């Protein structure tokens, strides 16, 4: 097990930056997920840690050793590939034992280790099978076992669950999480699936256009997104544009484009500045009569979607914008076409100044 440090790592292809100035510290035994849309540089970053891609600038350290110039095979890394990349000419056991044979581990010792891993991934007795006989989920386990067999310092996974169907993916997530916990192996996983990232990661690294947008736990990213991109990428969100009309010790007041003046916590910019309010659908109350919270808007229910435990309401405001409200199914709610009042508490909104990259501190940490 080892820690990983990326120090100002960049990669440019023919002048275009794929990864720009990425710095990241991964602690020993930590599970870090690189998350972002396609083309955000997460895979390139992972491949630089693996050694398949040479950084244009910066350095990579594994366990404190600078490995920037070390070839992949000498980095002592286990890796699970997107398509598993199992060797079709080898049996399950031969696949798992591949790295052991390359390391000239004595045959009896290697066999014991392979049996151990077959048991770990619940494929005992299937060692002699051809990998093509296995289901997608089983192939995934073999790929994981092959990566773990060499007792790597670091485990890398490139969209490991992407090829599985939803049910299987969820059960593999649980299993992967348990394995990582038990083995305490430092792990970096790449995915574009935010649900997967949130259920697996100790910390999530959100990337966009080759840059890190925010690093934090699932909850930190959800509750305190650093910028609009993160707010929109993680979970569902309502973004409301407004203008600061008052600042004070109690907080600020913002006149929304949707109509009405609402209160926010803290001070963001000065009077006259434009701001964006990011409000989670579940932080908004909805009723046919104004109730509860401080900030109130009125509108009409345009659409109502029953999703089992929760209901989504699409509320059209007076100015024509649509706000998504998520309420428990047990709430009385409202029917499509009904006029409603929606409201939220000042601490329910995260505020971003418009036209600036730096985050606003609309909702200070509790």
């Amino acid at each position, binding site marked *: 097990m080892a820690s990983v440090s990326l120090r100002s790592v960049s990669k440019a292809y023919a002048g275009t930056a794929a990864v720009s100035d990425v710095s990241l510290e991964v602690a020993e035994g930590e599970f870090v997920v690189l998350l972002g849309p396609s083309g955000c540089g997460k895979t390139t970053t992972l491949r630089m840690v693996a050694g398949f891609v040479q950084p244009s600038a910066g350095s990579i350290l594994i366990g404190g050793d600078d490995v920037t110039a070390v070839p992949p095979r000498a980095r002592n890394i286990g890796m699970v590939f997107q398509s598993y990349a199992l060797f079709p*000419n080898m049996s399950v056991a031969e696949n798992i034992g591949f790295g052991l044979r390359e390391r000239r581990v004595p045959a009896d010792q290697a066999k014991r280790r392979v049996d151990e891993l077959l048991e770990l991934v619940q494929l005992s007795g299937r060692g002699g099978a051809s990998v093509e006989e296995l289901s997608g989920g089983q192939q995934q386990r073999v790929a994981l076992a092959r990566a773990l067999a060499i007792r790597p310092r670091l485990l890398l996974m490139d969209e490991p669950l992407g090829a599985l169907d939803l049910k299987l993916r969820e059960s593999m997530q649980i299993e992967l999480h348990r394995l990582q916990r038990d083995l305490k192996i430092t792990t970096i996983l790449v995915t574009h699936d935010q649900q997967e990232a949130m259920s697996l990661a100790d910390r999530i690294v959100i990337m966009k256009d080759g840059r890190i947008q925010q690093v934090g736990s699932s909850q930190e990213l959800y509750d305190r997104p650093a910028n609009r991109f993160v707010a929109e990428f993680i979970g569902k969100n309502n973004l409301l544009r407004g203008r600061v009309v008052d600042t004070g010790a109690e907080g600020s007041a913002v006149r929304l484009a949707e109509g009405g003046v609402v209160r926010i916590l803290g001070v963001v910019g000065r009077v006259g500045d434009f701001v964006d309010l990011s409000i989670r659908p579940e932080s908004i109350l909805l009723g046919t009569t104004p109730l509860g919270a401080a900030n109130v808007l009125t509108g009409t229910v345009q659409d109502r979607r029953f999703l089992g435990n929760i209901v989504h309401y699409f509320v059209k405001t007076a100015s024509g914008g649509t706000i998504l409200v998520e309420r428990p199914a047990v709430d009385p709610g409202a029917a499509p076409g009904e006029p409603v009042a929606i409201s939220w508490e000042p601490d329910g909104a995260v505020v971003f100044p418009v036209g600036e990259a730096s985050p606003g501190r609309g909702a200070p940490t509790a």
Partner: protein
Amino acid sequence: MNSAVQHAAAAGLPASGSSPAGRAAGAGRRGRRDPRAVRWGWFLWPTVAVSFVLLVLPQLGFVWMSLHADLGLGQTGDVVTLANYREILSDPFYLRSIWITLYLSVATVVVVVLVGLPTAYALARMSPLPASILLGLILTTSLITVVIKLLGLNIILGSSGMVNAALLGLGIASAPLQLVNNEAGVLIGLVQYTLPLFVMLLFSVIQTIPRSLEEAAEIHGATRLSIFLRVILPLAKAGILAGSLITLNMSMGAFTSAILLGGGRVHTMPVLIQQKIVQSSEYGIGAALSTVLLVFVFLLNLAVGAWAGRSGGRARR
């Protein structure tokens, strides 16, 4: 769903029968054919008919002719005899011809594999545009008639040709090397004749080996040599074998390269057959030679096929 669509769906079923379930269902129906099933087997008949008329009949004529003694002036005897075969299999001259043909062909395979495999690998791992340009060039050159290519080779390989001039100029050779009108010339000709095909065949084989397999091998500790021996070679084995067999067969039967670069002095079997039949009108012995070549090549292919099938089956188990 209207009936026409239903009918189309039903007719499409046998075509998708490659799935295990489809195969099982097909096996269950054996004996009582689905009247709507497309009988793909019928498509084989035109090929069988053409092959029979253009290939099997003339060969049978040849075999028949080979069983008669030559009387000179293009006449053959009436008596059926194995004399021609006895002569071929006992005369050192003919045995040597079989041997030369075989070892030149095997040498060609060795050279073609050694040169063609890395070439095909490099092309398959290149970005698509340069690879398709280079493959296009290989295809174009391989389509130029072999006579023109060989005449070109004759010129540059001759004792005062470019190759010898370069070797002498660089001090590598002290006297011009004999590169044409001998076995070396035939070998060069055979390599140039078969190499493009081998490269194109192996290109498409290696392209099917995902890059990620190499990366998986590399990150789990494999050296380049180990990646080649444990991943690429096993996965390309069937393709290499097929390419080698094609190269061998083309070389065994190659006449133009052997005659033009061997200068008529290298008596491979195709050269001998041409001399016997066209030049000296000894149809009996010529026909017997070609039958021997045919049977020999056929047995060779069977043997390699059987060996590959056995070792392939073992690997899968």
